[in-house]
């Protein structure tokens, strides 16, 4: 069952749902997307750190990092490829991560100010003139995407270049990607394209290829930005089976109701049960 988030949010006439298909098999780790995103969106610097763990010194998504290129070195071959080093297998995995623009977005659900909202393109955007920096969205996101910016005190994350979409331009990261690893378009079409691409990779012998986030029946109702990965999601720092936390909210409120009743009954029992 597939929900159109813009329709569900009350838009009557709206454009097609837009999204990203990030095909990590052709990512070359150049980080053009990270730079383009920072430039276009005026995202401040996220610290000059040397991690020493890999070629990745960005580490993760945050308020000041809206695209993050993961870099993984593994002692295993990629498909039929020969690394050219005698007696040694290795492959490099590179993947550009981004906000998933979830169909059921926890960040948006829990925001108490209405700062986070659903756009007509089905994406999720923070209005930074409304956010009061409560930070609730930060631990709500099952992917660790959104953060609170130190300098402004309010939440920040990828907007899927809302301003560019509005004038018919593709997002800065997709525009800058030299290998088309980041593909932008109508989500329905991207899903079909990804299914074809998966077939092609499997046929070429790369059996570790799999799609991530494409399934409208997953715990977040499918993501607006989905991926073709070459290993388990957790290897890229992605949760293997994310669930929107608000799915359990009815049960949480019920338990709180029971607890409130127990609290009232307990104190009443202690009071009326006690001799004066």
């Amino acid at each position, binding site marked *: 069952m597939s929900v159109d988030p813009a329709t569900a949010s009350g838009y009557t006439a709206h454009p097609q749902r837009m999204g990203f298909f990030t095909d990590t098999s052709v990512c070359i780790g150049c980080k053009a997307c990270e730079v383009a995103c920072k430039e276009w969106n005026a995202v401040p610097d996220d610290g000059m750190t040397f991690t020493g763990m890999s070629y990745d010194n960005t580490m993760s998504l945050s308020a000041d990092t809206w695209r993050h290129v993961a870099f993984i070195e593994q002692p295993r071959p990629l498909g039929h490829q020969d690394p050219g080093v005698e007696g040694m297998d290795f492959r490099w995995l590179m993947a550009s991560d981004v906000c998933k623009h979830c169909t059921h977005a926890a960040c948006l659900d829990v925001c*108490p100010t209405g700062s986070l909202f659903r756009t007509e393109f089905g994406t999720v955007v923070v209005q930074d003139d409304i956010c009061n920096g409560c930070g609730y969205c930060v631990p709500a996101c099952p992917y660790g995407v959104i953060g609170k910016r130190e300098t402004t005190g309010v939440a920040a994350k990828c907007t899927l270049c809302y301003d560019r979409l509005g004038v018919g331009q593709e997002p800065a990261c997709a525009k800058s990607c030299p290998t088309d690893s980041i593909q932008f378009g109508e989500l329905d079409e991207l899903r079909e394209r990804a299914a074809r691409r998966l077939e092609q990779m499997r046929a070429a012998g790369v059996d570790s290829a799999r799609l991530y986030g494409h399934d409208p029946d997953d715990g977040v109702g499918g993501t607006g930005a989905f991926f073709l990965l070459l290993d388990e999601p957790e290897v890229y720092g992605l949760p293997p089976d994310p669930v929107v936390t608000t799915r359990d909210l009815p049960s949480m409120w019920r*338990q709180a109701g029971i*607890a409130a009743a127990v609290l009232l009954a307990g104190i009443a029992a202690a009071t009326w049960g006690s001799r004066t």
Partner: protein
Amino acid sequence: MSEDRPADQTDVRMDDDLALRPEREATVGSAGGREPRGDGRRGDRRRGERRRGDRAMVPEADFRSYYGLPVLNEPTWHDYDIAGYLFLGGLAGASSILAAAAGVTGRPRLARAGKVGALCAIGGSFYALIHDLGKPSRFVNMLRVFKVTSPMSVGTWILSAYGPQAGLAAVTAVTGRFPRLGRAASAGAGLTGAAVATYTAVLVADTAVPLWHDGHRELPLLFAGSAMAAAGGLGLLAAPLAEAGPARGTALLGTALEAAAYLRMERRLGPVAEPLRRGKGRLVRLGEGLSAAGALLGATAGRRSRAAAVAAGAALLAGSACTRFGVFHAGIASANDPAYTVEPQRARLAARERQRNGVPE
């Protein structure tokens, strides 16, 4: 076609011709034509598929992550603000209930202590909540909307209903003016106080933080118990012995409720409960110890000796604060370790897989 490509040819090319984007179609890993060998990683041999390509040879059971970095972003909440609020909110809510009950049963000094305590605690709560905002001047933006999906929004409205009533109850109790208004406000503060003391469990549970989210069934009861212990403690501390009976009982019941909820949660959560036994998470156990000691002391020596009652009350208040700080920090620790995010999700996927294949658990 990959077969006739030379082994050293790169798969990925730059191309300026927009009509032709061969890089997008590059079948990376197809050049070479060697017989692939796996490195034995788990998960590549799923769903009983035929083994070929770079499929693994041996499934690997160990946990994998991106260089051990957390999957989730760490909550930005400060412990003294938010854990402090969890404690103060519980203290305020339960104290209002105890005060209302004490007022009805003719224990004016216990009632007054509870009302004044509740007003101070809720004042501290408001301060902590606003202080923790990145933009405190925009606190009022909370009142733009009412969203049931946001426990923080619901909580803001609960506090807005509770705060003025708690204030009226305290002021009328201290001044002795407008007794009927005071009685109505006390009753109202007592009822809404029950919501104040328990919704905070939903506030933390409605996140992706593994310990808080997975504990969503027990946390409300644990918080209710902890709130009762705190309110009982305040009553023991402030009310004369002759009126403190309900406070002693509330402390005992609350401590028992909290301990039961904790045990149940720890058992049900399994490995995800580990952070409760490590680092600052151990504050929960300390808090339970303090609460139990305070409740027992209050129910024994605290019946006759004012000094013992004061000591018992202080232990109960400290115990409740420790419990809240412990739950808070254990949650943060569970968010910062990718194992608590990845492993339960892996287990869930495996269980679903078994179900699909009709294998019994």
